[in-house]
Structures are given as C-alpha cells and as structure tokens.
C-alpha cells in the first residue's frame, strides 16, 4: 500500500481541540466533521486540502481529548497519511482503529516542509520526499497492529477473529 501527496505542515502539540473544535462535536458525521477540520489552527486547510494529501507534524500530535472525531475528520478531509515525530497515545490508537494510516518518523517530521511532494510505502515504512529527493525510514507497525490495519479497522479485525 502506498500514499502520495502534497504536505500540510504543523508544529508541536497539535491538540484534538484544534483538529476538531468541541463546538462541532454535536455531529458525528464524517463529512460534516471534515468541513471544520483544523479550523482553529489553519482555517484555510479545508479549502486547500486535496484527496491524497499528507499531514506532517512534529511531536505529540493529537494530544488532549480522546475524541475519535479528530482522526475521523482528518481522514474524511482526504488526508491519506499523517507523519509525526511522535503521536499522543489515544490519537495513535484511534487512527489505527479507524484505518487512518499514521507513521512515526522524527527525521521526516523535521525535514519535510509544507507543499513538499511526499510518497510513503506502508509495507516498508519508507518515506520519500520527491521535492527534496530525500528518503527517511519510518517506524514499521508491530505485527499485531498491522493485522488491525489490514483488516481496515478494529471492528473488522474482531469479526475476523
């Protein structure tokens, strides 16, 4: 499985309140949530994002509230993968559980800039920056998590067990 797209870049500690503010949590419809994705940190994101684009951030991405609406909104906005130096633990679980590909790679997170064209190979964990012509080795998922990802989410995985 591969993803390829243009980068939207953010810094440290992007919290789930800015990914999807609480005032929109009276809905759980992915399409509706996507309309307000990143609104409090990057109001232009929703008009700029194209299907397949990639989100890159620094440390502790997705910290704060456990709201699964956050990865749901990111996925529904068209983002194909989130790369970060580190993820907050609840966001990490949520992303795997709903089938939003994420990858931890400090080197990539620090080097990649906004608008770079980036390709990710999920099987090998390799990240290739086409704009800068540089590669970074991301952390591959433990086998157990790969099984959840391959099943396209936790519920399908449980059904298959």
């Amino acid at each position: 499985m591969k993803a390829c797209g243009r980068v939207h870049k953010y810094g440290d500690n992007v919290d789930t309140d800015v990914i999807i503010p609480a005032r929109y949590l009276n809905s759980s419809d992915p399409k509706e949530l996507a309309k307000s994705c990143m609104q409090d940190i990057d109001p232009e994101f929703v008009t700029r994002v194209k299907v397949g684009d990639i989100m890159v951030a620094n440390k502790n991405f997705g910290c704060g509230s456990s709201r699964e609406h956050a990865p749901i909104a990111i996925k529904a906005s068209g983002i194909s993968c989130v790369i970060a130096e580190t993820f907050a633990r609840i966001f990490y679980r949520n992303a795997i559980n709903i089938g939003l590909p994420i990858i931890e790679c400090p080197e990539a997170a620090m080097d990649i800039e906004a608008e770079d064209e980036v390709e990710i190979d999920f099987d090998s964990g390799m990240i290739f920056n086409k704009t800068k012509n540089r590669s970074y080795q991301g952390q591959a998922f433990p086998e157990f998590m790969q099984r959840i990802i391959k099943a396209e989410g936790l519920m399908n995985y449980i059904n298959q067990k």
Partner: protein
Amino acid sequence: MGMTMTQKILAAHAGLESVCAGQLIEAELDMVLANDITGPVAIHEVEKLNMKTVFDKDKIALVPDHFTPNKDIKSAEHCKCVRNFAKQHDITNYFEVGEMGIEHALLPEKGLIVAGETCIGADSHTCTYGALGAFSTGVGSTDMGAGMMTGKAWFKVPSAIKIILTGKPSKWVSGKDVILHIIGQIGVDGALYKSMEFTGDGIKNLTMDDRFSIANMAIEAGAKNGIFPVDELTIEYMKEHSKKEYTVYEADEDAVYDEVITVDLAALEPTVAFPHLPENTRVVREAGEVKIDQVVIGSCTNGRIGDLRTAAKVLEGRHVAPGVRVIVFPATQKIYLQAIEEGLIQTFIKAGAIVSTPTCGPCLGGHMGVLAAGERAVSTTNRNFVGRMGHVESEVYLASPAVAAASAVTGKISEPAELGL
C-alpha cells in the same frame, strides 16, 4: 525483573505471571465508560460487529454529561442515541439527567471502580480513577465499543515515571498545584505512553479529592495512566462508596523506572498554567497583572466537595469583582446537594457567582460559559488549548479552586494571600 504497580494490575488481568514494558497484551476489563459525545460514535461502530450483546451489562457506564442538559437539537439526538442503547441492552449504570454527574467524579462516588481494577473510558480523563489504585485509561470510541462487546482491550504495557511526593503542602496548595507543577517540569509529552506512578510519604497529606485532581491530569503530561498506592484513606473512601471487592497491588522494590522525580510538597506555591498549554506554568506570585473576564470553578478536575469548600472559604463575606462572571458547577448531584446543605451555594450566590447543574459544558467551550474573542478566564479545568473554551482569541489560565476564587474577587490572577487569607 520487578514490575511497577500498573504492570502488576495489567499482568493479573491478562492472565500472565509477569509482563514487561513494550509487551502487547490483551486485558480483561472491569469497567467500560462512554459519554454523550463519544458514546454515539462507539454505538455506531458496534453495529459493525457480528456480536449483538454487551459483555456484561453491569460493567458498562454510560454518562451523558458533556452537552447536557441538551444544549441543542443535535446534542439531544446524541443523548437519545445513548439512552436508547442503554435501554436496549439494559445497561445498569446509565445515568440520566437528575442522577448524573460529571463522569469522572460520578464513577468513584457511585463505587463503580475500586483498587486493582482495569477501566477504559472513551474520555481522556478516565485516568482519574488511578487515585483509587486502579489501572484506568482514556481511549477512543472504537476501542470503547469493542470493550463494551468483548470485555477486553489490547494494551502496550507502559514503562513508568516514579514521582516521589514528600512533605506537607501549605494551606492554599492543593492537588491541582501539585500536578500543574509536575506538568510544568516534565512538559505536555513528558510522560508520553508511560505510567505516572506516585509514591512517597507526602501522599498521606493529600486528600482523596487532591489525588483525583492529580491522577485526572496525568493525560496532560501525555501519560497512559496516573496511579496512587492504596493507603488507609483510599480504603476508607472505597468502603464508604462501594460494595465491590478491591485488590491492593504494590510496585516491586526492584521495579524499573525510566525516570524518578521528587517533589517536595512543602516547597510548592499556588500555581497557574498560562495559555495555551498546561506546561506553561508559573507560580501565582510571578504571574504579573493579568486581568480576567470569567472564572470557572468545577469540572472532573476540581468540582468535588473539597474544591467547593475551598472556593467558598475564599469567597465567604467577599464579592466578585465588577465585570467578572463567575460560574461554579458542582460535579455531581450528590456534591451539589452537599454544597447546599453546608451553605456553600449561599456563599457563592451572595458573592455574585452563578451555580450550574453538573455538566462538562464550559470546560470544552460547549455551552454554559463560552468565551468571546479577547476574553480571559481563570479556570479550575484541565486544558487551556487554543479555542478550548470558545473563540480562538480567548485565553484560559488553569489554576486551583483557591486561586480561581481569589482571582474572582480581585478581577485578576491572584492567590488567597492577596486577600489577607
């Protein structure tokens, strides 16, 4: 190799002799929790499963507390979805408006979680119950839904930071100041993926309410859980609130920790976290002149009876500064009633504060106290992220009930000492 307290609880629930940090395990769950925001997403996910019945109707708690009393039609639909699911599956611990409270104050009060148990909740502050010596952690809706149907969850066994608390805090220093101080020291990702295991002879000087506040904000340092050892006070609390049997686990003497931090409680001062991260802490004495528009006293962090008593002590015989709006929200119906019986509510109202029914509303900018552009609040809640309480250009300063009440009187960030207390 020795195990931490958290590792021992996880090993016992995974049916294993021992576990080590980094190991992936599947653990049995004693309690699974959701609210009116995370519940509907979990219920929708559950519909994808082949299983049609919940694992144990007594081990699930559904608490509509965030946008309740229903703030708008969409929220009312969410609450209805949770209510219908609870009815359909005959969920024992569904708490309707009238008997509900803020989930993390309500569950311990109802005796639904005790020492040695495991709990997941689709709310990040589920880590609160670590105060009782339980393993308890926040998850998302899908994990919660799976837990509700299977009674199990997968975990990566965490490593731990040992936090040794020594000494006795001074009069106006509370659990909130302790946890703000620690987060200020280690940062909002200082305990990422890890347990924060509290220990030391200073713990005996902390009330259960203090310990709940501290464990509650473990997530604000990125931790998987925060956990306290079980002592006489914990046992007294559990006996008063629960009929469940508890199990006491202690960390091995040779348990391995990534880091050891010592905090002298006697040296702490009233502390405030400046916008927009809980790690931006300063002692109130060095906060400078920060004028405020609103004060919020309550939440799963600081809406317990001890918190209200402290706030009332500061507000007794005083009045809120002109132009400052003060919202007090007791965390549960029981706490609310107790506050009425003790005369605390009279004190608040005479001082010019308003008192709200239990709700998470103001903490997350949902309802009951949303901030406008440029407004500043001192709040006893747990997060001060951009836009957390309303407009992206509003500001939240996190503090204890004592500091929040003193600030209400002066109209700027203040500590009780400034009022001669």
